[in-house]
């Protein structure tokens, strides 16, 4: 299991290649990649701030919940911090299980929790200035599906 933050851009494909390598019993790998949207020029740069140490530990608790709930062989969470340009990946989550239902559900669950509860502070730098973003009502509703 791995939970990492990175200031540098990353390639989700390279992460998937490494995550799937050598798995002869896994059967199913689900992934999610979140990409910064340009929103037709409305957002130039996204700035994500974490609390190093604390943020990884809180995400690790979410990961442990997923492991308790589904029979997973492995999972990984990689999250960008700092300045992120449109088109760059923000988050990559991968789950490995014997069967696809567990892999899909755990990946979906991890994303819902990351989007609504993970300790990040997010600022959009757009043509109309800067603004801090909070989770949307949809983000909260998505997360509440798992209660």
């Amino acid at each position: 299991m791995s939970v990492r933050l990175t200031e540098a851009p990353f390639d989700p494909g390279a992460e998937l290649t490494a995550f799937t390598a050598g798995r002869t019993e896994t059967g199913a790998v689900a992934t999610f990649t979140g990409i910064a949207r340009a929103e037709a020029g409305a957002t130039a740069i996204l700035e994500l701030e974490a609390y190093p140490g604390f943020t990884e530990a809180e995400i690790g608790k979410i990961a442990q919940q997923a492991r308790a709930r589904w029979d997973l062989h492995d999972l990984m969470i990689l999250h960008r911090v700092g300045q992120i340009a449109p088109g760059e990946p923000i988050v990559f989550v991968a789950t490995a299980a014997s069967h696809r239902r567990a892999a899909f559900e755990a990946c979906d669950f991890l994303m819902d929790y990351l989007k609504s509860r993970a300790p990040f502070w997010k600022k959009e730098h757009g043509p109309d200035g800067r603004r801090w973003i909070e989770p949307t009502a949809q983000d909260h509703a998505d997360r509440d599906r798992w209660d």
Partner: protein
Amino acid sequence: MARVLLFGPLRDLAGWREREVAATSLAELRSLLAAEDADLGAALGGKGVQIAVDQAIVRGDAPLTTRSEVAFLPPMSGG
């Protein structure tokens, strides 16, 4: 001298991210910060602001040592 960290909009409001403050409790630390900057003092007590001492969330008052790290965490954006 506790180390104080501000995140997100609190950092923008205060104009600083990290400071050393001489305080032996969280309550003392908050009054010192509020005495210096009333807007920040109000924001630190605002809705949804959590406080972590040495990376663990605390509620109410807490003693601080010279090595304590105090983080004020405004509502999180998610990833």
